[in-house]
């Protein structure tokens, strides 16, 4: 094994350990953090409410594209009536949770990392420590919980908007029957499929928030270091989302 590869593997192991330890400390701080709900509400607003526009726009266009593509494919088999089924299951089980988590990592995860990173660089976290205020409890935990709550809600909104986007294309423009679109979707979707989507979105929310907060907390206290930490947040979140998506899908099937 070359020297570079050895350093790379070692760094990966170290990073996993750092994140794991931070996760445990974060969980321990979550209980006390729940006693300050205002901090969490502010973070739900920052991470969730302000991501609403991008999530709804992306959901709408994702749904519209799905409507077009599935219509084209199903049309080749003369089965355009199955459009509702195809779109509903695709959005609910895969595209809703995954795309929302990826967008959340880009929109809110980066903001979390750079915000906490800047606190680290300007010694605000150290100052808290000096004043015997636990920065994990007051800075990291509310942000983690805010993301954890926001992502499932954003995913649900994404999925519903996407469904209506697909309905817009399929029913209004391509002429699939309105009643058939919804009744086919309803007959194919079971409560289990909804649960799968919700579980995925909760897991993704936890992972993205954890990575974002951890990268910010442990970022190098320089301008360059914050930039690198932000990049790592997006890369690590995206890889983890897609990896865990496979694992969770395998578990649920």
């Amino acid at each position, binding site marked *: 094994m070359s020297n570079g590869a050895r350093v790379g593997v070692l760094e990966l192991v170290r990073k996993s350990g750092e994140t794991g330890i931070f996760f445990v400390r974060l969980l321990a701080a979550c209980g006390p953090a729940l006693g300050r709900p205002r901090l969490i*509400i*502010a973070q*739900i*607003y920052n991470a*969730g*409410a302000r991501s*609403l526009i991008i999530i709804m726009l992306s959901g709408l266009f994702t749904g519209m594209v799905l409507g077009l593509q599935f219509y084209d494919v199903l049309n080749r*088999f*003369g*089965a*355009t*009536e*199955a459009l509702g089924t195809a779109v*509903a299951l695709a959005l*609910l089980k895969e595209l809703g949770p995954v795309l929302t988590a990826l967008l959340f990592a880009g929109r809110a995860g980066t903001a979390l990392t750079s915000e906490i990173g800047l606190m680290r660089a300007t010694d605000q976290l150290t100052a808290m420590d000096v004043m015997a205020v636990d920065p994990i409890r007051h800075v990291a935990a509310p942000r983690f919980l805010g993301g954890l*709550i*926001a992502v*499932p*809600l*954003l995913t*649900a*909104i994404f*999925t*519903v908007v996407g*469904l209506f986007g697909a309905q817009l294309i399929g029913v209004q423009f391509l002429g699939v*029957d309105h*009643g*058939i679109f*919804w*009744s*086919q*979707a*309803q*007959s194919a*979707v*079971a*409560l289990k*499929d*909804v649960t799968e*989507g*919700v579980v995925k979105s909760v897991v993704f929310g936890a992972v993205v928030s954890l990575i974002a907060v951890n990268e910010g907390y442990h970022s190098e206290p320089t301008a360059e270091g914050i930039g690198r930490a932000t990049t790592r947040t997006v890369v690590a979140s995206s890889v983890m989302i897609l990896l865990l998506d496979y694992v969770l899908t395998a578990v649920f099937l």
Partner: protein
Amino acid sequence: MRANRSLEIGTGLFVLLGFAALLFLSMQLPANGLKFSFKKPAGYAVTAQFDNIGDLKVGAPVRMAGVRIGQVTRIDFDTNTERAKVWLRIDPRFNQIPADSSAAIDTEGLLGGQYIAISPGAMPTYLSNGSRILETQSALVLENLINKFFATEANKSHGSGDDAKESK
């Protein structure tokens, strides 16, 4: 204080919207979830009884000459006649359907859902709210057709097993 208030309203809106979406997904979308409908459907109700409705579902369209004129609103089993009872809601525009029209369950495409096709009769009176379509034709169940086909094939080969040469 002002800024705090708008923050709380924004968060509240987001959370409510999220839960509304979750409710929609878990209650309205799955067939086994709860359902409630808000808009009162327009039109008049007609019933029809079928021996077998196959895969017909609530919400399926009612068509006449291929044009959508209404939809299936309810499906139930009639214990008196031992048949399936289907409620149809016909658009108020189409109020001149002869009373002796017949209803059949057809399939759209290869994998598509089923719908009710109405073929017009000739009577001068029209279907109205509460009237019943008497003449119906059940859904074609593919498995039954296949079974029938294989049964007749088997009969044929049994009957003409030895004298195949003779028959042709």
